[in-house]
């Protein structure tokens, strides 16, 4: 193929959200020929049909070893090489592994073209990781708020406090014990559960 033809990109990622994020990112960057694979059933046939120039696979996918074998022995697929082969680009390689992704690239592609795909992939994998972390954070913040509400309710009922005083008591206790207010609330709720169950 000539270097002007649109690059064919195959994305193998079991995570549907990350797959979609990557797909959107690559399309935004002007790549149009993208194939997404969620499972690795019939991997060889798919690679044969798609005939990709670049294969992107997440590092949590055990089928990475399967891919490496295919590139070694198959007579029907072109042999992409791992992104690691170009030793000069160590920083990109480290960033990719940190982000949790690996790529295989058909030999002879211009570096700049591949570079754009790799940079995009790394940044989208990073974005997904941040998104996931934020979601986790939101989830635990929500959970914490619920526990604090419950603890406040217990104090209001048991100690005859109003809401503001109940919260102030929780906060004071947390500060004096050097703990988070959520932890104090959690201990109180667990203790009451134990006593009353």
């Amino acid at each position, binding site marked *: 193929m000539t270097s002007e033809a649109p690059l064919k990109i195959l994305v193998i990622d079991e995570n549907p959200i990350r797959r979609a994020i990557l797909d959107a990112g690559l399309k935004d960057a002007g790549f149009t020929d993208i194939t997404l694979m969620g499972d690795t059933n019939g991997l060889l046939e798919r690679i044969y049909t798609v005939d990709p120039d670049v294969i992107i696979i997440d*590092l949590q996918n055990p089928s990475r070893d399967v891919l*490496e074998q295919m590139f070694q022995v198959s007579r029907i697929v072109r042999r992409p090489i791992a992104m690691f082969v170009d030793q000069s680009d160590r920083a990109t390689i480290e960033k990719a592994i940190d982000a949790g992704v690996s790529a295989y690239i058909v030999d002879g592609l211009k570096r700049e073209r591949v570079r754009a795909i790799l940079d995009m992939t790394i940044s989208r994998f990073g974005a997904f990781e941040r998104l996931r972390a934020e979601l986790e954070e939101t989830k635990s913040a929500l959970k914490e708020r619920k526990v604090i509400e419950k603890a406040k309710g217990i104090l209001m009922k048991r100690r005859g406090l109003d809401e503001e005083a109940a919260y102030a008591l929780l906060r004071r206790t947390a500060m004096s014990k050097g703990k988070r207010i959520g932890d104090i609330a959690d201990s109180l709720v667990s203790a009451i559960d134990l006593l009353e169950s």
Partner: protein
Amino acid sequence: MTTDLSPVGTGAPVPLKIGFIPLADAAALIVAVDKGFARAQSLDVELVREISWSNVRDRLNIGQFDAAHLLAPVAVASSLGLGHVRVPILAPFNLGLNGNAITVTTALHAALRCEAQGDLADPRVSAAALARVVAARKRKGRDPLTFGMTFPYSTHNYQLRFWMASGGVDPDEDIRLVVLPPPYMVESIANGHVDAFCVGAPWNSVAVDLGIAHILHFVSEILERAAEKVLAVRSDWAGRHPELLARLLKAHAAAVAYVEDIANREDVCRILAAPNRLGVAPEVIRRTLDGRLKVSPSGELRASDRYLLIGRKGAARPDPVQAAWLYAQMIRWGQAPMSQDLLTAALGVFRPDIYDDVLGAPSDRAAGAPADGIGAFAGPPFDPHDILGHLAPWRIKRGAI
């Protein structure tokens, strides 16, 4: 980054990150860490469980791991720059010899039994039977048999090829040989994707326990001694941290002694069985370490004192002849050209000199070991100084050799 300024016992333990794949032959590494032998050497090891050999290799290569539980042929291939970027690796300590098994579906086992002229437990008999099964399938126009193994540069790959080729089966022409991640092996045999596989413990036993397969061979029946997994470090890392490497070896030597002491067997199985280590039942691991495996769904047992060697019989000391044998297989199967430089590089991966400097030469070395260090069931003795001459008599091989 690691520094080894502080002698053992002074200062904070040195943090190390070591990758492993959940397999029984990671025992020495896991026990070194979880039983405190690494800590006693003032090493603070974080074990990272990995999902693929490609990941272990890449993370070791770029320095995210200080050391790794690695397939011996990957250490050689990486040092020679085969199939991937060249990163010189040193193997100063064997984590295990042998330990794999060839497992076949109950259907293939029945077919082999029909064709066997003698005891199927004899690899000469089983390889000849396989050749007849393969020929019969070809005559009937049926799909070729599919064999699973774990990595292109794996002992499993070479053991399977060596065995079937000795019976006249060409592993690239007469059957399909595919890579499967070890945790998928059992499922693949259950759903009919493969007819057989060669993999390490515990996966063979898991398939037999499900009643869907027979263990046909321990690989120790094919080769008496094959370097399976090594403790691998980058050559440049070893050069910068000789003292750390020495401590790591001492921790492993202590762990090996603990693992091989039968009195500790239960404790070792418990440690390995943990969810963040191997994550399988202790009883299955016990069979592997005892070298006493259930080989058929009806409960038939087979025992071998060399099924998996973790340290005993001098197994932990690297033998460069093993590296040369692996390189010879890479040549035979078209993965590498023959060159004196590559042979020298391959021999230099296994470092008994480092082992001896730190731990002293083992006293029970070579007790009952084969004269050529390999002990293959077929063919002439291995000669690392005449690889082409050694490969010449084999009819089935690749490339221009």
